């Protein structure tokens, strides 16, 4: 489902070129749940950005469900994202100008899906927010906002879900509830999950770990 070979990312800094990622090879099968772990600055988020087609690598190649992301232009990658990819972010990234319902409807509307409102309402009900449809993000708690974001991520029934520190902004009990929800939905929709975190407990819930250190894969292991 997700494949990277010889992937590298180099940026120019005042002190000369800096390699953020070097020589990354990985394969993620459909339906798999993979955690990318590592300390701050190890390159986790950069790798997520490359795998999801949000950014282009300096070297190497990314394939997403068979699409050569390097070969596509920005609009082409946007279309692939719209069709195949869902996102959950640490900072939720809801549009402040739209209600919970409208935020969930947005990807459906962008893809001109059928009955976006009904689908979105169903999803919000599924994440336990049936009573919060017309609330704006500001009027929701952090946990509620992340649940809206999860509903939005699943609205297009994506083949792959990328989650970047999804509990980073939540207290531990709320975080746990949100993660339970994320994995439940993941199972129900048979989605491939790529999760970036520095939380070992959260990583432990995934089938496989990819550990990054200074931009290189140090170890890949299956959860015992």
């Amino acid at each position, binding site marked *: 489902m997700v494949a990277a070979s010889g992937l590298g990312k180099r940026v120019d800094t005042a002190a000369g070129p800096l390699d953020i990622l070097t020589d990354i090879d990985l394969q993620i099968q459909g339906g798999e749940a993979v955690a990318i772990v590592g300390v701050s600055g190890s390159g986790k*988020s950069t790798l*997520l*950005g490359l795998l999801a087609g*949000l*950014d282009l690598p300096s070297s190497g190649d990314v394939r997403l469900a068979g699409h050569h992301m390097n070969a596509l232009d*920005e*609009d082409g990658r*946007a*279309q692939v*994202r*719209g*069709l195949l990819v869902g*996102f959950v*972010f640490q*900072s939720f*990234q809801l*549009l*402040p*100008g*739209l209600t919970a319902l*409208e935020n969930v409807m*947005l*990807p459906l*509307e*962008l*893809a*001109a899906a059928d009955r976006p409102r009904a689908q979105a309402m169903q999803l919000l009900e599924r994440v336990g927010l049936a009573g919060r449809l017309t609330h704006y993000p500001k009027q929701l708690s952090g946990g509620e906002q992340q649940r809206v974001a999860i509903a939005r991520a699943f609205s297009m029934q994506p083949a792959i879900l990328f989650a*970047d520190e999804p509990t980073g902004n939540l207290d531990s009990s709320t975080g746990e509830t949100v993660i339970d929800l994320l994995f439940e939905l993941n199972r129900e929709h048979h989605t491939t999950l790529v999760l970036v975190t520095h939380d070992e407990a959260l990583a432990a819930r995934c089938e496989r770990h990819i550990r990054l250190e200074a931009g290189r894969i140090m170890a890949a292991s299956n959860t015992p």
Partner: protein
Amino acid sequence: MNHATRWRLAMRLLARDWRAGELRILSAAIIIAVAASTAIGFFTDRLGRGMVNQSADFLGADLVLESPRPVAAEWLAEARETGLGTSEALKFSSVLVAGDQLQLGGVRAVEAGFPLRGRLRTAAGPFLTDAEDTGIPVVGEAWAAPRLLTRLGLNSGDSLTVGERTLLIRKVLTFEPGQAGSPFGVAPRLLMNLADVPATGVVQPGSRLTYQYLFAGAEQDIARYRGWLKPRLGPSHRLIGVQEGRRAVGSALERAERFLGLAIMAAIVLAGVAIAMAARRYSERHFDMSAMLRCLGATQRDLLALYLAQLLVLGLLASAAGCLLGWLAQQGLLALLAELLPMAPSATSAWPVLAGLLTGLVVLAGFALPPVLRLKDVSPLRVLRRELSPLTGNAWLVYGAAITAVLLLMWRYTGNAKLTLAALAGGAAASAVLGLLGFILLALGRRLHTRVGVAWRFGLNNLWRRRRASVSQILAFGLALMAMAVIALVRSDLLSTWQSQLPVDVPNHFAINIMPEEVEAVRGFMAAHAVETTRIYPMVRGRLVTINDAPVRQAVTKEAQSDNALNRELNFTWTTELQEDNRILSGRWWRAGDAGRPLVSVESKLAERLGIEVDDYLGFTVGDEVFTARVASIRSVQWDSFRPNFYMVFPPGVIERFAATWMTSFHLPPGDKPMLIELVRNYPSITVLEMDLILAQVERIFRQVTLAVEYVLLFVLLAGFAVLFAALQASLDERLYEGALLRALGASRRQLRSGHLVEFITLGALAGLVAAIGTECLAWVLYSQVLHFDYSFKWPVWIAAPLTGAVLIGAAGYRGTRPVVERSPVLLLRER
């Protein structure tokens, strides 16, 4: 994303931004720009269209012949034979008397059938609704303009006297064709029947009268008659067709539009700056949303369409509101100038609305589009790395778009490429100089910084840190205050100069049209009333036609060909004694034995303009007769002495054979005015010019026109406020954060508020200071180069401008920064 989705989403986002107050400054700035431009647009359109549609109606005919004397009867016979309708009228100025009130009026006596084109409009009484009127005043009656009635304290049904004839005022005259071409007519109008004229006694040989002959008919007949008439016209005849009538009003309107247009451009450019600032903030506040939409699969095209739709709808809505405001403002402008307008404005048309909408969109495209276009370049990676912003906009694109928009609009206002570029270059140069000045003042203020208390340090620091925004605000307000100060200065100085030109003992009345046989009687009358007059001079009206045997237009320089003195009759006199205030500059004054010799003394300024020197031979016509005289002297004249003075003075015995009237001037204190009534009753042909009243009238017109200009300048001030609030809004997030931090560190609300007050009072005072410096320089140039006034240091401006700036901007800025202390610091820090 399909079109419907994009549209729905765009409108939803727009509505949300609107509710959140994100678009207030942007729309206010558009509204100001559009209101300013449509106010002038409506104004000139309504007047201009009225003029073009109805110029024949305004002229009262298709063709008008004006002559100081009656024309040959065959000319009229020829017109009737050609198939034209004709009508005669007589125009003259006369002192109108009602009880003990006097007023110089512009009188027109007409015959049945007047006007041939268009209609008179009358009302039953002053300030009542008027209607078209198909008749003319019957014998023994007159129709008077509202202003005349007000001046004389009359109402319809009262009587007034013209010369020796008393007329009953039957109706109020609200519109009279043929008054076009003198947009700022001074004397209030009276319309009477031609048959009453002999009884008034105003028509005497040598009286200043204008005979009008109106013609109307089919276009080709008019053209044929025109062709027949033209070769027969003498230099004193004036032929006015529809084009000429239109041109006179048209050029006055065009000048007004250009002048007001430049003031409006200043408002539009300032509003544009505010729009650019607000659009930049709008763009920055939408980076996150754009990145998220990109993540969700939106293409660049989707984003572009999304934001352009919002911009378009916002632009149209704000422009529509601006049009409405502009229309209201234009009503105010019309009301301010109502008394001066040559015609009733026609109904509002849709054109200015269209032009207003277009102006709004052009300003928006020029100033708001470049920052908004950046939104499509936001990287989707921003959702992971918030520090990623799209590259700053291409400077060429940003400034290029703005300059193109300004050029486009300016060209529309001035209709003249050279003027546009000159105004733009001048504006840019002035902005650069004043901007630099603002920067220097700001830097000087900064040097105080270490010697003042904490509130001052905080305030001055804020100004210096945002110095680009500070300078642009100083510039915006400086320009607005400067323009208003210059207008106010020129007005008050012009008025006080006029008043000071009339010292108590100087003559303030002219009596003209004194018949030769009345001269002794008038002298006696004045003596009997203990009124001291200047000498009584004969006056003959004639034209200068040749210089050294060459037709005058060929003899003079190209610039002098359009000299007014060549296009009208000049006043001649004869005398043995040089007038008190005249000096001989070259040549010699009359000697004994010069009487009867063809010599002439020429006024020096006229001589200089036309290149006339001593010993030149000048050819004159008086009536139909031609004669020549040699220039014996060039003479300086003090025109503002209010004594009778003449361009051409002859020795006795040269022009005495021509019909002459006599004139004199005298001083009359306001309390002695009733004497004038007796004078005019006894000698009805005499016209008294009350210079004090005429000056008061000119003064009033001037006051109204300058008020109208200041009214328009209010838009510039408003646009300045838009810049202030846009800059405030742009810095608000930062201010909120800083305020929260400072409060968390223990600063009191009072300390923060004092700091804000210091910041904006200083900003306003600096803008006022820039305005004062600019005003001083501009006033110096105006006074010494244009108005030729004595220049003195304008110290009141140096107090008023900084004070006004400090109060206005201090109050607005203080109000605008209130959220900084109103929101909880905890919330603000957490949001960050």
